[in-house]
């Protein structure tokens, strides 16, 4: 059962990107890219050769690999709604967060390896913003742990029924809002980062991987798609508390939720402009504050 939705994630992640782009195109009055463009890009890149800079060392070549491996391992720990993850144990949410941190370390190191000011710029900003985003993720997941009384992500999400929403709806709403902000921040979406900009001065994630090409870049794009799937699954598991017990129904609802999240991201990207970089820390601290408030409000019996 868990293998099925792991395979779904592996196959379906680039499709989410396609949905986001199609939403943005529809709202802008364009026809836009094909829905399967993500797959075409990966196919093209996997068939190319590679060019490596003479400045770089093995760290540059290891960055995309460690990044993708870390996100894949995080997917092994990720439940989808009612279906448990492949591996579940108490405290696995901490491991999930820190695996994403491992991917970040090597991406930043690979960026600094090029010896270029563009990558350094992106690396510097990414280090700052992700440091501020870490507490939000862990506090949000800790709130879910407290809310359901379970210690493992799979058990937490399996127990997030409508009853739990009735009991602690305020906390869960705050956590959802924090997770939405985190989703936008960690997956380089507007308002934190613009995935379509060509100006290095405004990039964060795009510019860190500027020098990669060929199969390396394919790994990076695929890892980014998987990370989007991961955060969307975390969000959908909270917001859509359908736990019918029938595998087909739960999975179908979860997939619909993921597609809805992608459409939501496309809407946000079309309706907002990017925030000034000095405002991004304020947004992230706001998300952390919401998650902290959610954790404090969560006590046995809900609100005081």
């Amino acid at each position: 059962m868990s293998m099925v939705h792991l395979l779904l994630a592996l196959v379906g992640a680039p499709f989410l990107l396609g949905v986001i782009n199609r939403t943005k195109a529809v709202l802008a009055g364009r026809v836009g890219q094909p829905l399967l463009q993500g797959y075409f890009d990966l196919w093209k890149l996997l068939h190319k050769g590679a060019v490596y800079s003479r400045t770089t060392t093995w760290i540059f070549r290891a960055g995309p690999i460690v990044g993708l491996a870390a996100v894949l391992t995080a997917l092994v720990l990720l439940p989808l709604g009612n279906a448990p993850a492949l591996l579940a144990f108490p405290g696995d949410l901490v491991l999930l967060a820190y695996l994403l941190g491992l991917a970040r370390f090597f991406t930043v190191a690979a960026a600094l390896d090029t010896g270029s000011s563009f990558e350094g710029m992106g690396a510097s900003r990414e280090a700052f913003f992700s440091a501020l985003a870490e507490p939000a993720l862990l506090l949000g997941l800790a709130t879910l742990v407290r809310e359901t009384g379970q210690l493992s992500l799979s058990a937490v999400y399996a127990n997030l029924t409508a009853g739990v929403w009735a009991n602690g709806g305020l906390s869960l709403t705050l956590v959802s809002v924090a997770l939405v902000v985190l989703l936008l921040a960690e997956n380089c979406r507007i308002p934190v980062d613009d995935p379509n900009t060509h100006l290095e001065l405004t990039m964060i994630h795009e510019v860190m991987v500027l020098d990669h090409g060929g199969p390396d870049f394919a790994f990076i794009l695929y890892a980014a798609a998987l990370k989007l799937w991961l955060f969307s699954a975390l969000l959908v598991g909270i917001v859509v508390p359908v736990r019918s017990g029938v595998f087909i129904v739960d999975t179908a609802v979860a997939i619909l939720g993921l597609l809805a999240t992608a459409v939501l991201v496309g809407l946000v990207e079309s309706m907002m402009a990017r925030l000034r970089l000095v405002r991004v820390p304020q947004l992230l601290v706001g998300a952390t504050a919401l998650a902290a408030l959610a954790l404090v409000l969560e006590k046995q019996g809900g609100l005081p």
Partner: protein
Amino acid sequence: MTLLLVALAIMLAGGVLALASVSSSRLATAFGVLGALAGSAIGLVPVVQVLTAGTTIALHLPWNVPYGSFAVTLDPLSALFVLPILVLTALAAVYGAPYLLAHAEHRTLGPAWFFYNLLTASMVLVAIAANGVLFLVAWEVMSLSSFFLVTFDDEKASVREAGWTYLVATHLGTAFLLVLFVVLGRQAGTLDFDAIATQGVLPGTANLCFLLALIGFGTKAGFIPLHVWLPEAHPAAPSHVSAVMSGVMIKTGIYGLVRTLTFLGTPAYWWAWLLIAVGLTSGILGIVMALAQKDLKRLLAYSSVENIGIIGLGLGAGLLGLNEGQPAVAVLGFAGALFHVVNHAIFKGMLFLGAGAVLNATGTGEINKQGGLMKRMPWEATAFLIGAVSICGLPPFNGFAGEFLIYLSTFNEELARTMDVAVPALAVIAGLALIGGLALACFTKAFGIIFLGEPRSDSAASAQPAPALMRGPMIVLAILCPLVGMMSPLLIPALASAVQVIGGPNVRLAASQLSGATSVLTSVVVTTSILIGLVIALALLRRMLLANRSVRASETWGCGYVRPTVRMQYTGTSFSQPLTDWFQPIVQGTKTEPVIAEYFPQGAALAVKPREVWRERLYAPLFTGFGVCLGKLRWLQHGRAQLYVLYIALTMLFLLIWYLGISA
């Protein structure tokens, strides 16, 4: 126990022989290193025995000192602290041999090795002492020998200054320890730790003792605001001494605090709050200050403050559990803190040895002058990378396991019952997460700017790899990091027996509480094995894909710039600039910006300097004010011998009256 004492004797003998060989520095080094290695190897035998079996060995000999006895006890808690002491000092001694021999032309090395072995022996004695007087004597010897080691390069004024700061700070801390032992001794009538522990302490006295211990031992450990000596002393010392000081000497402060906790019975609620607050402050402020530093060793020193903060958070969580009567929380919190003590010794020692290699190769420790050292020193760079990834607490290395246990302790649902416990638990989770994120920023800066990219100065461009004796210990420590990480489930029994000592009767069967932790850590190891497998698989996949395709080398894409220069790279200061600007209230750095007025400016300069906030804003005014007040008493020192004799006579008269008055 005799084996351990024999080991200490061998170390001291090696040191004395080194001191005696005045003529040849090589002979002195040989004696010193061999004494350290032999002593550590022999000393490890009883330590490992105690840790695996969970037993306690003790020795009690009388000593002709008031209230003193030569009582030494090696219980699992002491053994857990002695283990990293022996291992790290042995490896650092091997590293220090070629490091110091490079300085051999203009000074003799005998004293350096004598004090090094004396430092090791006194640290072990601090950890096993079971009598207050013996403890204080060993503590003082530890402080003095490390002072002499810190001031090895004493022709530099900055080193002398750092030495004085360190000496004053450690003695101020020891003053509080004196008061602590006096209070404990008056209560129990003796200074033997066993007697004090069994007799217990009254609650009012317990609060006072906790505060005294926190300040006294906290000065050695490096809690903020008692940390001001750390960023001065650690960079000033030779690198192998910095590794020992940062890796194990500051942990003796943690040991003292934990041992005092075993005397004080069930902790009060505010103890846990205070320790969590101190841990949070030290952790966050420490790592932010580390980000602002431009010298690698100062950065690592501030990072030690941060890690002591993490240990403080773990201890606070454990105390919270003890206070609430939740053994599961207490055991996990203490286990995480103690595990972090061992882990930090490994990777911080590794990082300082790496800093020494960089210093050796390029002649400067300034981060902004390095670059591209990975190509010139690949082994040292990879070892430094492993240390950097470990200190950020990332899987699959050992840093993750310790922090994971602390997280697990705070997730316990018993901590959600009331606001009283929910808020500290929240503080621990948020604090650990923020500290981890900032540590990632700090160590990507340290590793990336120094070892990656292009060399930013000629000295970096012409760097040579370190000699084999310096590389060897670094590689051993670098192998230990993932090894300890993957073997963490096997180390739980040793941690359990140590935690049992802390918890005492309040924590029944710590081993059974931690058995759950063993299975959890095993799952973590399984997951990280999957990670490693995926890394290897993806690497092979890429090799397969690129097998028959063109793989070229070229310049880094510069967006069309035809003449990229090395100066266009990011420096360490620019990398951390968003963070240090945002945390300006903490860092309070000074920035002199250029004022460009003309259309074709010829040149401009920008200077960014971090500031020692606590030292300048708190201690300097305090000590200056103290000096001014005492200066008002200068009229007492007039230089006339007759009046000085009168002072002595008056004092003796006063004492006689007081003594007779009391005895009457």
